[in-house]
Structure formats: C-alpha cells, structure tokens
C-alpha cells in the first residue's frame, strides 16, 4: 500500500514472423507497459518496426466511423467490439456514410434556407442575381429559386430537356438558379428540380427585383407558402436523422472499438526495435503477473521466442502502477495532479487518504454544509461518471465535515437550540457570546467559534504531527536510497530541531495555549535538553544539507511550516462567521418585519448559504491540498515517476 507495485523488466526477442502473435497476446493480457523503442544514432543496429500492412485500411474506416459519430452527434454507449470481418465493416460503414452524407447535406441546405427566411435575406438573395427577361417568350415558364447541389450538375441534366435555359448565381454558398422552359416542358422541369430540393423564391420578391412579366411559372406557388414547406422538410429530415442514429449507434461504436483495438495492435511495431529478421520488445509487467505472462507468450509462439524477466536496475525509470485498496484510489488523482512518486520512494497516497478528509472536515466542520455537499457530490457522481474518482475523494471529505460538524455543534451556522427545547432537554444554559441573554448550545465537544485560542493550538498541533510523519517518511526514503547515515544527517537533524520550535511556540510566542499546551508540556523534556537537541540537530542538518540547510535553520523555516497549519483554524472560522452573519441577517429581517420578512429572509438564507457552501468547498479543498503539496511533501517527496500504461483494451 505504501509502495507502487513491484515491477519486472520484460524483454521479448524473436523472429519477426512471430511479432504479430506476441503483440496480440500481450494486448489480450493487458498487463504490459511497453517501453517505446527509440533509435539513438543512425548506426543503431535496431530500427523502428513498420506497422502491419492492414493498418492503413483500419485507419481509413476508423476515420469514417468517427466522422459519422461526430456528424450525427451520437452519444457514447458501452458496447462489445464488432466481430464482423473487415470487409463487412468497411461495406456497412461506406453505406452508412453515403446515406448520412445525403441526409446531412439536405439538412444543411434547408437550415440555410430557413436562416434566409428568418433573417429576411430572401430579398438580398434575389437582388444579387440579375436575369435578363426582355427576350422572354410570354408563354415561357420560369422557375426561380434555390437548389441543393451545384449548377454544373443541373446544366447537364437540363440539356436533356429541349428548349430550356439556365442562369445561376450563389448566395452565402447556396446556389440560386433561374430556369426558363417552354410551357409544355413545365412538368418535366419541375420534376427534375424537385430532385434538387428546389425551393422557389416568392413572386413578390422576384417581381420587386426583376420585372418578370410572365407569371405563368408560378402556378404551383402560393405566397409565403415556401417558408412553411422548408420547416416541414426540416422536420422530416430530423426524423430521418433520428432513425439513422437509432439504427447505427450500436454498429458505429462497436466498430469503432474493434478498429481502435486493431489499429493499436497494428501500430505497436512502431514502438518495437526490429532488424531485418528479428524484433526486440521491451516493457514492464507487475511481478505477480510474471509467470502468467511468460507462460501465455510461450503458448502463443510455441516457445519460439525468448522471454526474459529481470529485476529493475538502478537508474531504470520504472513505471508506477499504484497499489491501493479501492477506498484509497480516489486520492491517486491528487498525485496525478502533482507528480507521481518515483519507484523507490514511499507512495504518499495513503497518507493523503487519511489526512486530506480530516483537514477538509476540520475546516468545513458543519453538519448542514457537510450534508449539502455530500448530496451534491453524490448527484454529480451520477451525472459525471468520468469525474468519479475525484468526487469519491470529496464524498469522504464531506463525511468528515459532518463528523467535525457534530464535534463543533454547528448546523448551517446554528449553534443554539430554541430556549424551550433547551429547557425541556435539561441543557445547561450559557451566557451568549454575541449580544446579551442566555443561550442553550447544542451538545458538542468543542465550541470553535468561542475557543479560538484552543482552535489555533489544535491546528498547530495537527501541523506538528503531520510534519513529524513527513520527516519519518523522509527518513525511511533516505535510508532506502542512501543509507542510515544520510538519513540521520538530513531528516534526523530536523526531528531534533522540532522540539525547540514547539517549545518556542508554547512558551515564547504563546501560539499554543490551553489544554494543548498542557498536553505538550507533559511530554516535553526540560528546556536544557530541548536546547541541546536543537544544537545537535542544527549541526547535523548543516552537515547534511550544506548551505541550504544552514539557511533553513537560520530562518526557522520549519516554524513557518508549522504555523502554516493555522489556516485550518482561519478557513474554518471564516466559513463559520459568514454562516453566522447570514443567519443573523435573516433573523433580524423576520424580527423587524414580521411575517412579510420571511420572504427576504429566505432569499438571504438561500443565497448566503449557497455562496458560503461554494466557498466552503473551494477553500478547504485548496488549503488542504496545499498543506499536503507544500508542507507535507517538501519533507520527503521527490516524485518524477511515469505512469504505468498497460498495452491493451482498458486504456
């Protein structure tokens, strides 16, 4: 739990003819982190492998499938990979692609027309396009309007109909066409134009711009009718799109998944070193999977490849595979945010799992707020499954807020019971801390709004404990990396310096007071011993860390680290004060205005507590995180590990 998974370096060497089997087998096993092969010099004996020959075909289909998914706007569903043959997948994808292309281009066209009508741009479209009408045969019919597709196709088609002439122009990317035809050809031309989704422009509009006298062409046209026609068309098209979506969703996603698997496999040789005849694959597998991987690779290749497992050597950049029980896993994302631990050092995720919710809860510390945030995060978890991990961490933090809320006796900022209840339950009354009168506080262990000095002392005590834990982890890390002597010089020194800082805080600066001070005094050795420890510690640190150590001792950097934990008190008090202000404001409102005051009071309560809860999530989160990243990690954490990414389907 305190260390990442133990890794073994895997080397597979074999003839190139078996590369495909090895890659497929590793992909199925899904436990190997492939180390990318890089060619260092031109003289390097090995070269990058080439993707399998079908890769291009796969990528081609994959591009089409992804285009379809995004163009149709289909929501992702969970599917099994498609098991059809590549040819079948390609054929169905092409079919779908053509159909979607057709429907979508019509949708695009009609939405554009609708936009013209909505923005009254028809006038402009018509005026852009001047048609000479003076030579008109009065019996001629003409069609004037938009077509979907370009004019050259139409002019080819029109050539088959005798006595027609075509004039075209474009408006905002849409073709505007004017077709003249003999009156006998009226029906024929109309049918042809319908194939082009012809949408006529209304007569008055046309007349205004072009003095077209022969109205015969508009027999089939009703005024202002076209706008409705377009809307109906769009509705029909939407139905087609919905049907297409419904029919193709499963196929598209299962095909996408299958193709992704195939391209992953086909592109794997790019990460492997090869010569003319052999390949070498290097990677990492968890030690507990070593035997299984070895056996499966042997089975897949009938023992014709060499498989070797080695322990990591010094200087190897071993990928980090976290090794935590499920409940700790949410906190891994906090490590991702910072930097992953390196292979040799202690993985601090578990400590974050313990202390992060405590710090968060200590700061928010209100039963009501804890419940609200808990519900909020539970809802978000359902709504946003992708952020599940970090939300789980927040859920734990919310639960701790409720626990500390009970300890502090705070319920949405309310700390007191109504007097009748207090008397009935036999609760001891207290003089009010703000204003006059007596109050009946809700039973609690610690009143943080009143015992501010004690709250400060407790916060600082948290800091002392936290930093001692960090120093112990640092000690263990250095023992592992450089031996006991270094550990004593570097971390032992600081451990000896700490008591002097605590003594100063308790006796000289008076930051630690009350029962915490008594507690510390009972275990603190007498001052001369503390001073001697400080001197020895300082000397050890200066020897161990040189100039940097000397500066840190001189400026009492560890003291500022400890005092930094005072933020646990500060953020908590700020949130409590804001809640009190909101409640008092609302209370005054009802007291002064009577029953009518309930409305503004409710508004103040909802708004005020809403803002306070938003701040109450953000601020404790940032400060708890910072206490870990800065004060805690600085004492031991190096980081710089890279993440274990298994070659296979799960990633």
């Amino acid at each position: 739990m305190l260390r990442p998974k133990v890794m073994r370096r895997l080397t597979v060497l074999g003839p190139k003819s078996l590369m495909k089997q090895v890659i497929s087998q590793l992909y199925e096993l899904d436990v190997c982190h492939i180390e990318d092969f890089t060619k260092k010099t031109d003289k390097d004996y090995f070269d990058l492998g080439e993707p399998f020959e079908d890769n291009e075909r796969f990528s081609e289909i994959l591009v089409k499938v992804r285009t379809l998914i995004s163009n149709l706007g289909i929501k992702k569903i969970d599917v099994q990979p498609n098991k059809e043959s590549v040819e079948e997948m390609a054929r169905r994808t092409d079919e779908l692609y053509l159909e979607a292309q057709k429907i979508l281009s019509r949708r695009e066209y009609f939405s554009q027309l609708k936009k013209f009508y909505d923005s009254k741009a028809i006038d402009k479209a018509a005026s852009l396009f001047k048609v000479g009408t003076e030579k008109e045969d009065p019996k001629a019919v003409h069609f004037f309007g938009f077509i979907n597709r370009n004019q050259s196709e139409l002019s080819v088609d029109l050539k088959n109909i005798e006595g027609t002439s075509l004039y075209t122009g474009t408006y905002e990317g849409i073709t505007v066409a004017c077709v003249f035809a003999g009156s006998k050809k009226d029906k024929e031309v109309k049918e042809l134009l319908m194939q082009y989704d012809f949408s006529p422009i209304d007569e008055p509009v046309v007349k205004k711009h072009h003095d077209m006298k022969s109205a015969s062409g508009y027999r089939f046209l009703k005024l202002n009718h076209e706008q409705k026609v377009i809307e109906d068309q769009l509705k029909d098209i939407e139905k087609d799109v919905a049907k297409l979506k419904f029919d193709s969703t499963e196929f598209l996603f299962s095909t996408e998944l299958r193709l992704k698997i195939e391209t992953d496999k086909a592109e794997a040789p790019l990460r492997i070193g090869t010569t003319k005849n052999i390949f070498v694959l290097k990677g990492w597998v968890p030690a507990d999977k070593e035997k299984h991987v070895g056996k499966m690779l042997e089975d897949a290749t009938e023992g014709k490849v060499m498989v070797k497992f080695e322990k990591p050597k010094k200087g190897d950049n071993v990928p980090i595979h976290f090794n935590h029980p499920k409940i700790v896993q949410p906190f891994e994302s906090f490590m991702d945010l910072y930097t992953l631990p390196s292979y040799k050092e202690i993985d601090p995720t578990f400590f974050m799992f313990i202390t992060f919710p405590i710090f968060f809860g200590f700061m928010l510390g209100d039963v009501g707020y804890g419940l609200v945030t808990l519900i909020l995060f539970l809802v978000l978890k359902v709504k946003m499954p992708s952020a599940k991990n970090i939300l789980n961490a927040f859920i734990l933090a919310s639960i701790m807020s409720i626990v500390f809320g009970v300890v502090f006796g705070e319920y949405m900022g309310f700390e007191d019971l109504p007097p009748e209840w207090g008397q009935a339950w036999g609760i001891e009354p207290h003089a009010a801390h703000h204003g006059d009168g007596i109050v009946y506080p809700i039973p609690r262990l610690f009143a943080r709004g009143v015992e501010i000095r004690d709250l400060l002392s407790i916060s600082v005590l948290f800091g002392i404990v936290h930093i001692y834990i960090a120093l112990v982890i640092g000690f263990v890390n250095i023992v592992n990396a450089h031996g006991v002597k270094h550990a004593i010089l570097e971390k032992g020194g600081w451990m000896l310096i700490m008591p002097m800082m605590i003594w100063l805080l308790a006796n000289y600066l008076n930051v630690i007071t009350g029962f915490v001070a008594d507690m510390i005094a009972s275990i603190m050795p007498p001052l001369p011993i503390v001073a001697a420890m400080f001197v020895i510690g300082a000397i050890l640190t200066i020897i161990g860390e040189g100039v940097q150590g000397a500066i840190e001792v001189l400026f009492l950097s560890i003291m500022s680290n400890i005092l930094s934990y005072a933020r646990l008190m500060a953020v908590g008090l700020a949130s409590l004060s804001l809640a009190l202000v909101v409640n008092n404001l609302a209370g005054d409102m009802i007291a002064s205005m009577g029953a009518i005051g309930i409305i503004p009071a409710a508004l103040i309560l909802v708004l005020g507590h809403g803002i306070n809860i938003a701040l109450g999530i953000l601020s404790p989160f940032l400060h708890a995180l910072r206490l870990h990243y800065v004060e805690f990690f600085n004492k031991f954490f190096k980081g710089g590990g890279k993440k274990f990414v298994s070659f296979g389907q799960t990633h």
Partner: protein
Amino acid sequence: MATEIGIGVGLVALSASLAVGMTAFATGIAEKEIGAAAIGAMAEKEELFGKGLILTVIPESLVIFGLVVAILIIGMVG
C-alpha cells in the same frame, strides 16, 4: 454596543486589523504575479496545474501569519 470602548482597546483592535489587512495586501500582490505566470504556464502545458496551484498559494502563508499575530495581539487584552 452598550459597553464603552477605551482608547487602549481600540488601539489593540486597530493593530490587530492592520496585522490581517496589510498581510492580506502583501499576499494579494505576491499572488497576483505568481498566479498570472502560473496560468500562462498552464496554457502551454496543462500538467503544470498542480505545481502552478502550489506556487500560487505559497504567499497565502503571509496572511495566515498575520492572522496568528492578530490573535496574539487580541490575546494581550484578554
């Protein structure tokens, strides 16, 4: 308020507020620069969020110390 506040208590309150207020100013000025730089760095490389956040909140300690000092000052009058 019913109780009369003497000049001494007033001065203590004033100095406590100065301790918090001025350190808050200092924190603000320091965080302004760091925050801007951190956002710039994050725009280039998103992984720097963690480091950017930490660097940005480092000066926050100033105002925390200010608050501690304020509490100590108020403690002088009891």
